[in-house]
């Protein structure tokens, strides 16, 4: 196999600088880059040209499953499999099924949301090259990092752009 290429990592001081940098990279048609920030910088996805996430659809699917699954289960268990006269009410009394169906809907939606999140973000991923950057510890503190992935064809172009914008500690980290 070809020997693995390094990743380029550097950082800016303010969200604003990062924002401009990302816009630049995006406009130059650079795809394989990422921003690492201590908190979500608003509008950055536009600056990076990212598509919206599919998470809501996953949650919707789970929620619907929960709703119908729970209702169906209650109907079958108390109405079909073993109907019992309880307080003179009909065996399958849908009025009584509402609360439980609701709760299960929420529960499954929540699971969908939780696992969907980690699924889409491919976490947990304990090791990542960018963490090798000597000042990485500030990425979760007060600095705003940019990383150019080795897969990026316009790798060198990206480096120039970042240099021009005065990125700090431009380091190539081994994969």
């Amino acid at each position, binding site marked *: 196999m070809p020997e693995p290429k390094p990743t380029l990592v550097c950082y800016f001081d303010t969200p604003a600088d990062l924002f401009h940098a990302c816009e630049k990279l995006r406009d130059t048609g650079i795809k394989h880059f990422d921003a690492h920030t201590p908190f979500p910088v608003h509008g950055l996805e536009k600056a990076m040209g990212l598509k919206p996430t599919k998470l809501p659809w996953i949650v919707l699917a789970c929620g619907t499953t929960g709703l119908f699954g729970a209702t169906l289960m209650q109907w079958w268990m108390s109405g079909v499999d073993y109907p*019992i*006269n*309880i*307080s*003179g*009410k*009909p065996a399958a*009394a849908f*009025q009584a099924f509402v609360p439980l169906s609701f709760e299960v809907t929420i529960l499954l939606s929540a699971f969908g949301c939780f696992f969907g999140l980690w699924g889409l973000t491919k976490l947990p991923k304990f090791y990542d090259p960018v963490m090798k950057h000597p000042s990485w510890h500030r990425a979760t503190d007060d600095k705003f990092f940019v990383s150019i992935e080795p897969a990026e064809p316009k790798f060198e172009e990206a480096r120039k752009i970042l240099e021009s914008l005065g990125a700090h500690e431009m380091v190539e980290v081994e994969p």
Partner: protein
Amino acid sequence: MRRLPILGSSGKQYWRSLGELQGSAEFEASLANEFPEGATEAPSGVSRRNFLSILGASAALATLAGCRRPEEKILPYAKAPEEVIPGNALYFATALPFAGTALGLLVESHEGRPTKIEGNPRHPDSLGATNLYAQATVLDLYDPDRSQHPLERGEKRTWAEASTFLASFGQGLRTSGGKGFAVLTGAHRSPTLAKQLAKLQEVLPQAKVYAYEPLSRQNVREGAKLAFGKLLEPVRDVAKARVIAAFDSDFLALEGSAIKHARGFAETRKLDQVQDAKNLSRLYVVESSMTVTGGAADHRLRMKSGEVAGFVFALAHELAQSHGITLDGDVLASLGAAKTTNGDKAAAWVKALAKDLAANKGQSLLLAGERQPASVHAVVNLLNLALGNVGATVKFVPAFDEASDGPESLLALTKAIDAKDVETLLVLGGNPVFDAPADAEFARAFGSLMTIHVGTHVNETAAVATWHLNQAHYLESWGDVVAEDGTASIIQPLIAPLYGGKSDIEVVAAVAGIQGSGYELVRATWKAGLLDVDFERKWRRALHDGFIDGTAHRDVLPEASTADLGAAIKATKAADDGFEVTFAPDVHAYDGRFANNGWLQELPDPIYKLTWGNAALISPATARELNVTDGEHVTVDVGSGRVSLPVIVAPGQADRSVALAIGQGRRQVGRVGKDIGVDVFPLRTSAGFGFVSGATVSKGPGTTNLPRTQEHFQMEGRQLVRETTSEELLADAQVIRKMDPISPPLLSLWHDWEYKGHRWGMAVDLSTCIGCAVCVVACQAENNIPVVGPDQVLLSREMHWLRIDRYFEGTQDDPVSVSQPMTCQHCENAPCEQVCPVAATTHGPEGLNDMVYNRCIGTKYCGNNCPYKVRRFNYFNFSKREITEQRKMQYNPDVTVRTRGVMEKCSFCVQRINEAKIAAKREGLDRVPTDNVVSACAQACPTGAITFGDLNDPNSTVVKKLSLQNELGYRLLDFLNVRPRITYLAKIRNLNPELESA
């Protein structure tokens, strides 16, 4: 007639007797290893434990279903006794001697274990019902604290040793002609025992026989003597009476043939149509403290027991003066002298009552309480005679024997002992050392003798006796007994003596040197007696029926012979206005003999709902005067003795009259009765045997938390017990219905379930319910309901499935009282069911509200949501707590014994329903024949106030009972739309217009 649960068309065959089996080896064997289901089904090693292990098991099996079950053994009979079908109950007829009469019983037996007592429908004094004590005797049989061996000065002896002793003892006596020997019996009514005693006196001419009963009926007999010149006993036929006047007499619950009285009373209160309200009887009660009878009265006048005599005299006088009742001149004169009426109300009563009685000649009935002096009984007898009631509502029959069983006989005995005329004493049953009148000083005298005590328990008397011989329980021994009206019954054993005890008959025979077992002796009596010709057939018939046909006395028609009456009347003390103390049997312990019976101790007394012990009842006014409240102690001093005990402030109690219950505070008693209640015998003298005036009562030190099952006796203006008067009812048949609370039309969100097959339901007639609480004990016996003890009752954790609610209306001092049996209503829209998260309580196709113990996880939510609060939770392992090897034998194998942590409640005796249904299936029937299921409460009810059956069966008793449900019927808390299956029939009082105003 009500029939036994599993008696189908072929029911009678069960009523077979043990007679032919008696003596046969198999029989003895089968009884000797009297295993319950054990006989074929019980796990061995733990053999008899089956019953209780049910609960262990239900927990264990439910939870540990995971692991292989432990190996279980099955022990079949080696030789099977005839007619015992493992798993099927048998019923045998026998009789219980009680309170001067006999109760004919049918005893349910499982593989030789008597488990439940029912009344014998054909017996004149039980009429298929029972009283509290009959129900509880089966628990007594298995009382682990029963005396289990003969004792000589407290040392264990075998029966072999005891027998040799008895033989030599008798031998010695016979040589001396019985000099210095005396026998002390209770008020027994056994021909065979009488015969043995007679024989004893033949062989021991110098021996004496004394009789003593702490609740003696001597006054009644004396009263007859004073009025008619001979010892007679009254037999009342309340059913024929339209005006009933009871003077300090609890004849519906505790005096004489109470069940018969209650049934008769109920007859006179039944309504088949509204018009019958015209012919209801009217019950007047004059008494010092509220009794069951007083609670059922239409008019109740509270006065000291000591004032009753004066009142009765006044009444007699009034009848003679203004209503042309002819009385002997001397009597009339002394009546005039001795009559007293304390207050206008009493005066008004005399007039009104006299008028009502006079207007109902031949169909009125006067009764005097057993504790009232002979003179009062005499006057009452005369009035009954003069009013033409004798022969109609009351008959007189010859007394069973002439000997007195009153306190004076015990005084005589002590005198004889002190005079060294008596040196050896044989005590047959009873407990004179504990319950003798204080002034007899019997305990002292007793100690100075060589004494032999025969008894089922090691009581105070046994403890100090030279010899104690453990007596066989009446369910273990052969005997016979004569009912009030003379009807004789054979007492046959249901089980071989658990501890090899002997009956009093056998002991006397042994002393007299007569050969033969109890069985032979009893047979001998009757072979020589009525049954002489064709003996075997008649004997079997007698055992089968439970009584001997044609033994009832034909009544003697007495004539007035009042030579000594005048003097007696004058001699009758009138009450002063000091404090009076009255003595009555304790509901729990009776005269002390049931002090170790858990069912009875925990039974709430019918009026004030006290369990476990006794208290002094005082009126609210007196409580204010003494400045005491519930539970605070008072010291009662009658000069000869003083006692300190807690009070209950009792609405309806006569002012300055303190009611005490005898029989509690036993010193020598088993684990149940230990340290329960206060002994009041120190206050009871032969002079003040029924009641005594001139006592001093003062607030004493100390307080006791009284374990009562009801704390609030007001109805808070709620229509729980609905009642009206016959007048109002006749005026407006809908008067009860108009009491329905205003509520929106009861609509249901959905279609109701249909109940096509059986539809079990119950009717409770509040007009005839006297609140005697027999149903409560019957329920406890039938359904393996645990006893929880006073500490738990104090936390209101009693487990009774059926309770009797008591409410007082009117003033605190002089209230009217009503009682209402309360149990699971088996609501068709049961609120308890919907809240159970695991569906442990659900509805069956016949409308039963099923409670499944083994599914219950114990959230207790159902109990919260029950508007009637009839659900009971096993907060501890109550059933396991109280258990002993013997106790287990009483358990009903058809009812699961509940474990800790599960809810329980009335099941409408589902085990009886299922048995009947299965029996029907066996016979290929589609449905259970009419009235083949009777719930335990309905079966035991003396008045038939509770009826149970199939609401879908037009012929069933319950449907007939509900013929007036549109007028009198109502369902409790109906507005909740829970659709209870129990219908209450409103209480109808029959008031005397002249007294309403007064």
